[in-house]
């Protein structure tokens, strides 16, 4: 997918003016955070688990080569294969080679962000293989040729009318006069249509939430059960995943699983957590005949031990999206690529370059909510700051922005001058805005006043009021 991240500002303006999106976001604002809060409240050990989860991920990353080799060894021992992919193109080619060898015409797909990251659907289609997304939300956005707008609820930006229109346009063989105005009817139709797709598929592709070195198992976490039908029914199961998903043991996975659903949807556990180890056994009556793991790097190994290292702990729970004032105002599509919200603002520049995605780490109020809800304690605001520093070092901002920042830095390094300037500005703006108490427009501050008024200062700067008070108290 061609990123539209360079147009973040335009995207955001359009999103703010989109009434359907704003209606969907209004629902999300209340629901997501309330559900997490309830789950958090019912588990007194939540904070201690966050610390353990962070430690498990850090331990794994510090020995990632070892755990990946152990994982690979056990996948092979259980009859599966591992395909290492440095780039998105190598991962796509690995998937294609398997599909070609099996003569696959259709593949079903469980929800996978790595699949989105490598643009697998468009690629397979171009090769004459029909990919069918089977997560309800992924299915409808595939029909609409849209990217996901959320890590877990990829179609939460759509209202039932959009679902209904997309289903009618796609399911031409169903009665025209059927009713599709309720979520129940839409879910039933999705189930019915996709049932046939599950049965017809030659290959099933899923992602993985965790890769377990101890057993060579891949783990998926779902609520619909689509991932399990995707991987159980066809001739082959391909897991497309990335290197940082490794964990040492089943016990380690369980610690992370105590946090993932609670942080994501507020569930004690998602409906289905499935541990898959190798292909169908000799005496099995069902299950895939082949088991493949496509292991993607795509820039991740280069993040190790850099200022973006901590991002590799991310378990994709979406809590940072669900609590971000920026994300909840503009939705996921404004971010212009696969990952959105605070985790997207940090990860996207690592994967597609800060030149392309430089706006994203700037789309933050630095309120810190994302870091405070992160189950693996990723310091997201700090890393957004690091991206801003890199932008500065590479001269990626506009000349005017740099000049303004340099002027500010010049002043900030000279406290006396800064105080004098602040006092002067406070007096001047205080006088000028005394009548209304606010400014609707101000030269050089269009970025601020374009969306809201600037309150007029009281006429004195804090520092001068403070100094005056100190003098008064000292003379007493």
């Amino acid at each position, binding site marked *: 997918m061609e990123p539209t991240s360079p147009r973040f500002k335009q995207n955001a303006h359009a999103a703010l003016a989109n009434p359907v999106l704003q209606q969907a976001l209004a629902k999300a604002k209340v629901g997501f955070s309330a559900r997490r809060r309830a789950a958090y409240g019912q588990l007194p050990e939540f904070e201690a688990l966050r610390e353990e989860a962070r430690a498990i991920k850090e331990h794994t990353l510090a020995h*990632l080569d070892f755990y990946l080799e152990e994982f690979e060894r056990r996948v092979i021992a259980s009859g599966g294969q591992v395909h290492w992919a440095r780039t998105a193109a190598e991962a796509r080619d*690995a998937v294609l080679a398997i599909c070609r060898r099996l003569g696959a015409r259709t593949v079903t797909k469980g929800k996978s962000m790595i699949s989105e990251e490598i643009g697998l659907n468009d690629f397979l289609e171009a090769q004459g293989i029909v990919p069918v997304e089977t997560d309800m939300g992924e299915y409808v956005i595939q029909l609409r040729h849209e990217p996901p707008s959320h890590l877990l609820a990829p179609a939460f930006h759509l209202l039932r009318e959009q679902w209904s229109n997309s289903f009618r346009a796609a399911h031409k063989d169903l009665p025209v006069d059927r009713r599709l105005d309720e979520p129940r009817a839409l879910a039933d139709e999705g189930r019915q249509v996709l049932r046939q797709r599950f049965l017809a598929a030659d290959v099933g592709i899923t992602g993985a939430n965790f890769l377990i070195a101890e057993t060579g*198992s891949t783990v998926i976490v779902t*609520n619909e059960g689509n991932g399990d039908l995707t991987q159980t029914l066809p001739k082959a199961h391909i897991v497309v995943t990335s290197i940082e998903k490794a964990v040492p043991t089943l016990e380690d996975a369980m610690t992370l699983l105590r946090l993932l659903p609670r942080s994501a949807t507020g569930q*004690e556990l998602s*409906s289905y*957590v*499935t541990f898959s180890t190798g292909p169908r056994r000799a005496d099995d009556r069902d299950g895939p005949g082949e088991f493949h793991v496509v292991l993607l790097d795509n820039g991740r190994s280069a993040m190790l031990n850099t200022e973006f290292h901590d991002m590799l702990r991310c378990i994709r729970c979406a809590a940072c999206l669900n609590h971000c004032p920026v994300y909840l105002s503009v939705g996921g599509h404004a971010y212009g690529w696969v990952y959105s919200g605070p985790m997207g603002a940090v990860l996207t520049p690592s994967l597609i370059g800060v030149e392309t995605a430089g706006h994203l780490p700037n789309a933050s109020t630095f309120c810190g909510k994302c870091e405070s809800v992160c189950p693996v304690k990723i310091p997201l605001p700090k890393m957004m700051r690091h991206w801003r520093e890199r932008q500065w070092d590479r001269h990626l901002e506009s000349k005017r922005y740099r000049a303004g920042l340099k002027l500010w830095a010049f002043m900030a390094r000279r406290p006396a001058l800064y105080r004098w300037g602040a006092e002067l500005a406070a007096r001047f703006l205080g006088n000028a805005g005394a009548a209304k108490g606010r400014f609707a427009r101000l030269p050089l501050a269009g970025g601020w006043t374009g969306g809201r008024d600037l309150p007029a200062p009281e006429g004195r700067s804090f520092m001068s009021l403070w100094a005056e008070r100190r003098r008064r108290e000292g003379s007493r």
Partner: protein
Amino acid sequence: MSGEPDARGQILGGIRRALGRGSLSASEAAPLRERLAEPAANLIPARARGLDAEALVALFRTLAEKANATMARVPDAAAVPRAVTEYLAGHNLPAQAVMAPDAALDAYPWSDQPLLRVRRGRAEVADAVSITPAFAAIAESGTVMLTSGAERPTTLNFLPGTHIVVLRRDQLVGAYEEAWARLRATAHERGEQMPRAVNFVTGPSRTGDIEQVLQLGAHGPQRFHIVLVDR
């Protein structure tokens, strides 16, 4: 393995370069191998520890029901078939089911319910109801643990609209870690590895994708019913 000839080496080499070291020496790897060979439990929440049999059942029931599962408790094996037919009748479902070809289910007197038609095998699309044994159940989240094998086809857990699990009370544990310990012990006893599929099932299938309104029965079962047998 396959893929670009040196992709594997380059990725592993890149990781080692970033970590500022070469491959781990045998002595450096030893504690890691230990960690994999003798997996240790991390923090287990207090709610899952030190529960007696009745407290386990109570917690399991509360959380399973919170996840929209239903549960019937019967005193002994003789009462199981009737609990199944009563559940089916109560939901206007036909007295017909596909059942796991597992010896564990032979312990129940199915012939007591002559109207219940049972086929043994994997699930097919036309099957509306499945009956399976469980490997274990976990009270801390109201979860049933199912393992695949010749006698326990995975399709039974996902294709039919209604899934009935027969669970013995002695299969109920407090924490996930206890369930894994039991699985390792069983596998070790039989000289087997991990089952191909281990399914943790907590309630029926669901989706919140459409306007965040919860709908049960997205792609998997719409009903998930547990028959708990005391002895």
